[in-house]
């Protein structure tokens, strides 16, 4: 059976996880103030109905095609493949999506759900700003009031996205508590939701948070993997590559491309590899690698791998990429990791910067710093798999938003001999094959 993209209507598949209590194995759940439990029940019910309602699915499908520009291409990165000297590397181009990243898939879907539930106001949290921009965009399109919470540190790093959100009519509320980054923005968004729960919809940006968010966001992002199956079939005559690589902060782009493959029988399942932000190195403590360097705990309503100390205080994460700078990882990823359905590997800031330079120079594609983590590992993996292999990398977003930060970092590097040398080495490698 060969599916064509033109036949692919929106699929929101039923996966075997989570269980009815919202658990992926032991992970997930609903660790939230009691005030929110009825709202989560209401959301779960509304989502369950929407998922079966053709009018909802058709409207979402129409917006994904006509507004977002789906399907996103599956692109053979030939020069990157040649450079790596091994398996073919395909890029699933979520950077083509309107607003610049996969986040818009989920925001439009949740926005439609908010309208369906009769809510007039939405709140969202954002780190890198991609989810904030996508939420503000969906709110503008659907006529909803929108408040986006963003850490003061991230506001500094992502000035352009802040302005975009304001242009779109959203109110951006600066969060100055805690580490002034994504985790604190999430705390504030949840507090707002607790306070205004009766008329407010919380558009959560990743596969984290209390049930049903991790399952719902996964379903909305699974279009990435569903499209990949069809596109790879057309290009290579098979739906599953040998490996799929995607970056993981909370983990929504990764789940989106993993989930349609994850529950296949073992012999049909590609290796699924999530790249975690290792920052300055997992051993340094300055990282955001929750699987490699965390332990089981509870944050933002969910039991998951978490960076926290031996008394349960959350350890501030560090990553060059604001979008990966989160101390936890979605509960379904924790389940994948514990059961071996997927592997999680750390990639450092320096490696991500190197990969960003590499992809830009070789393919003319400036990836988001988040996605650059996946590119780095894909190059390593291509060599390991050899020329018969096929790798799909989820290129979750484009790097426009990161330009000023990258400029700052590369300038700084000139003052840092060691890092400068590393960068020159990359540039020279690029020169050699250019």
């Amino acid at each position: 059976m060969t599916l064509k993209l033109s036949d692919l209507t929106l699929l929101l598949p039923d996966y075997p996880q989570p269980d009815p209590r919202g658990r992926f194995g032991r992970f997930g759940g609903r660790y939230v103030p009691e005030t929110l439990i009825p709202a989560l029940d209401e959301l779960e019910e509304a989502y369950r109905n929407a998922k079966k309602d053709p009018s909802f699915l058709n409207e979402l499908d129409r917006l994904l095609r006509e507004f977002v520009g789906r399907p996103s291409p599956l692109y053979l990165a030939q020069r990157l493949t040649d450079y790596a000297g091994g398996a073919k590397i395909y890029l699933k181009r979520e950077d083509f999506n309107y607003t610049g990243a996969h986040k818009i898939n989920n925001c439009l879907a949740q926005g439609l759900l908010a309208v369906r539930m009769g809510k007039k106001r939405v709140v969202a949290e954002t780190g890198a700003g991609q989810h904030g921009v996508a939420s503000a965009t969906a709110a503008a399109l659907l006529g909803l009031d929108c408040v986006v919470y963003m850490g003061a540190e991230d506001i500094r790093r992502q000035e352009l996205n802040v302005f975009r959100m304001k242009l779109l009519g959203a109110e951006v509320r600066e969060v100055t508590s805690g580490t002034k980054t994504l985790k604190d923005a999430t705390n504030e968004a949840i507090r707002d939701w607790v306070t205004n729960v009766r008329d407010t919809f919380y558009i959560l940006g990743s596969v984290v948070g209390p049930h049903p968010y991790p399952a719902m966001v996964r379903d909305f992002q699974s279009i990435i993997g569903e499209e990949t199956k069809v596109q790879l079939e057309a290009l290579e005559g098979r739906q599953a590559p040998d490996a799929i690589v995607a970056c993981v902060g909370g983990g929504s782009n990764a789940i989106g491309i993993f989930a349609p493959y994850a529950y296949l029988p073992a012999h049909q399942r590609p290796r699924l590899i999530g790249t975690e932000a290792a920052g300055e190195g997992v051993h340094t403590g300055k990282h955001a690698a929750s699987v490699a360097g965390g332990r089981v705990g509870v944050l933002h309503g969910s039991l998951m791998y978490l960076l926290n100390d031996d008394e349960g205080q959350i350890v501030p994460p560090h990553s060059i990429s604001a979008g990966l700078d989160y101390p936890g990882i979605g509960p379904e990823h924790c389940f994948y990791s514990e059961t071996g359905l997927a592997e999680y590997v750390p990639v450092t800031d320096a490696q991500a910067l190197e990969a960003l330079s590499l992809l830009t120079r070789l393919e003319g594609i400036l990836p988001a710093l988040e996605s650059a983590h996946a590119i780095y590992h894909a190059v390593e993996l291509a060599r390991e798999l050899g020329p018969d292999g096929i790798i799909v990398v989820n290129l979750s977003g484009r790097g426009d938003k990161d330009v000023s930060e990258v400029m700052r970092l590369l300038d700084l590097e000139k003052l840092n001999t060691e890092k400068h040398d590393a960068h020159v080495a990359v540039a020279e490698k690029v020169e050699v094959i250019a």
Partner: protein
Amino acid sequence: MTAVSQTRGAARIHAAFAEAQAQGRAAFIPFMTAGYPSAAEFPAVADALLSRADLLEVGIPYSDPLGDGPTIQRASEKALDGGTSTRRTLQLVADLRVRHDKPIVIMTYVNPIYAVGPREFMRLAQAAGVDGLILPDLPPDQDIEIAALAEEYGLAVTFLIAPTSTPARVRLVAEACTGFLYAVSVTGVTGTREGAALNEVPAMLALARQFAHVPIAVGFGVKDAATASQVAQQADGVVVGSAFINAVRDGQDVGALAAEIAEGCRKL
């Protein structure tokens, strides 16, 4: 109200409510973040509160207290900066136990319990003389292990209901409580409010009374004798938190404020 659970902590908590009731008062339950404003100054603040309290609620400072407003969050940050965390909090309670016999309950988010290990946490809490736990981000159907372990170590458990709670939720939460039932007066986080609207409290309490076999206390937004009095006419207990944090921060006489609010808890 019939006493069902009889752990040591539950018995002591129920006795404190009964004693207040006998004196024509709602139980007065002040809250203070452990280690605030500093580990050295906390004992004196706690002494001042305990001189008027029927029960004392001590909060374990936590980095991400998403059920709390800015007042308690800032107090937590300050306490953490001063080195007060989970084990240190329990030590501070143990120190209070030397001087005081009133029930002391710990308010904690669940993550510190997981980090220490649920059984180890309960063991330490029991050894410190803690009588019960208040768990703001743990709906009772999420993790029955915590409640079971608490009971094993003689600690009473308090869960929360809110104005948004459906009758089915109120029943589930009320039946799970072994210490007292904590009714949140407003949809929102902790903190004093201008013109705090307590108009949702009567309906919530009427519902809760149908199911609760433990005393019911009301908290969130109770900031002075007047609001305490309003709540005291309806509830078995009154919880006041952020107002005391603010008083400590502003260098006010905490004992005097406690006396004033305790007086407000008299049933008319």
